[in-house]
């Protein structure tokens, strides 16, 4: 049992280490000075208020939310359709198609984005919002596909036959018979693709137009200039709180380990 206690202490120390870099953004953000310092000098919540007054942050936040909503929704719909084809049908070249659907996971992001940049320049999608949406689809479809494939293969097909025999049309059947059975898979796929897309820096950094930054790119730009204003940690702390809330809600509803294992 001594070993167990030591393991426990080790795990809790590491837990604090994992939280430290996120927690530290709070004390440096309440300083009364115009620069970051630790321990903070004085106490003020002005930097947090500043975040809500910042027009550029609001603008980029809305763009990021749009991007994430659009790519998560499309990724889930696309992945749901293809996972039905994969579970229910046999077709020539199935293995090849499967490799294509999971392929983007094994290619490093920087290589993926460089290929897209070169390709977008030759077809005129460079620095467009739609180009960015498609680039996010490439990284979100594989995850949504993997999650939904598991859900769809656990469906009870006999329920669908019954529904059809009883005269349900496709829409009714989907919403009354299929959707309730794969609800958690759908929620997990949507939420995690949304979060992946919202938080992604690399894609937008290479592919978005200078005037159309997403929120993470805007943060990156502010981190790169010297003399970071305490507004940046203040905003980071807000983002971390939102992330923590999402995490706990998701863990309680769908279970993180079940759906995230193996996610890139």
């Amino acid at each position, binding site marked *: 049992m001594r070993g167990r206690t030591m*393991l426990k202490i080790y795990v809790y120390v590491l837990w604090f280490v994992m939280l430290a870099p996120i927690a530290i953004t709070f004390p440096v953000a309440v300083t009364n000075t115009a620069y970051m310092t630790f321990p903070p000098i004085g106490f003020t919540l002005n930097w947090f208020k500043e975040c809500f007054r910042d027009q550029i942050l609001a603008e980029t936040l809305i763009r990021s939310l749009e991007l994430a909503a659009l790519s998560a929704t499309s990724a889930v719909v696309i992945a749901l359709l293809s996972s039905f084809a994969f579970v229910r049908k046999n077709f020539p070249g199935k293995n090849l198609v499967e490799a294509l659907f999971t392929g983007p996971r094994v290619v490093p992001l*920087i290589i993926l984005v460089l290929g897209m940049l070169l390709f977008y320049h030759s077809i005129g999608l460079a620095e467009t919002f739609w180009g960015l949406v498609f680039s996010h689809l490439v990284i979100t479809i594989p995850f949504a596909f993997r999650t939904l494939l598991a859900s769809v293969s656990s469906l009870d097909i006999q329920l669908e036959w019954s529904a059809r025999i009883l005269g349900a049309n496709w829409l009714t059947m989907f919403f009354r018979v299929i959707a309730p059975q794969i609800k958690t898979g759908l929620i997990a796929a949507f939420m995690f693709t949304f979060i992946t897309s919202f938080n992604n820096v690399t894609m937008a950094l290479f592919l978005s137009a200078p005037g159309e930054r997403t929120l993470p790119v805007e943060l990156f730009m502010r981190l790169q200039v010297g003399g970071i204003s305490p507004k940046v940690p203040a905003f980071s702390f807000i*983002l971390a709180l939102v992330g923590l809330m999402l995490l706990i809600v998701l863990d309680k509803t769908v279970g993180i380990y079940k759906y995230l294992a193996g996610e890139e």
Partner: protein
Amino acid sequence: MGKSGLVSRLVYPTRRYSWIIMIMPGLLVLVIFFLVPMVRLAQLAFYQPDPIWIYKPAFTLTNFAKFFSDPFYWGMIFNSLRVGLLTTVCTLLVGYPIAYYLSLSRGTERTILTAGFMLPLFVTMLVGTLGWYILFLPFGLVQRILQSLGLVSGPLRVLKTFTALVVVLGYLHLPYALLILVSSIQSVPREKIDAARTLGAPTWMIFLKIVLPLTMPGITSSAILVFALSSSSYLVPVLITGQSIPLLPIAIWRYTNETLNWPFAAANALILFAITIVVMYGLILLTNRISRRGKWEVV
């Protein structure tokens, strides 16, 4: 299929080629926006750079010749490998005991621990990177703690060093490793451990002879993932070490955006990809030798 096939044909009469419609959207998106760009990238790596047209579509090996004839670029490969391997080893060593504890934990403790360890997945990596940047600053906590413990006296220079890079990359990628390791450890059959214990095996032997070999596939897939992610990371090196450590991803970015030498950037990208694949297969071979099983999972 038999009877169920018959029923399904009765119920879905005209659906024989429906799979085409169902996979079409995904297939189109991935062919156009994943496969074509990758082929284009590979193609461009063999084109001649051109100051006006960016590239001349004529086959050449000059990009690779330029890369491999210069020791600077060899150093870059070495640095990228070093960052990737060191981060992988540290992350797995730190992460395995945590994963073991997490797989045994239940209820509120599990939720609290999960929240702390998985948070980097839910917040943009810039937040964690900024946090470490603040911690590593000369006035930061790391300095204060080490100083109060009497471990260091003068100002630390952690920021901009290799150590800082590995710490931040390990922090960001630990959750990925943990997810794989936890599910791997949880799938070890309880009966085997109980049987070994009944037969009088001490805990360390149970770990070495049962848990470790059975979780080897999980260790390999998490190692592959952490290596691929950390050796190709561009954002962390830019923010933490700047240009002080030459790395392949930084070179790719510079040639793409600053010098506009796209063919050379593409060649760099191909080399980085080749390194990832070589290390990946190396790890798989190593696992197969250790666990003597042909089983491994790629993410």
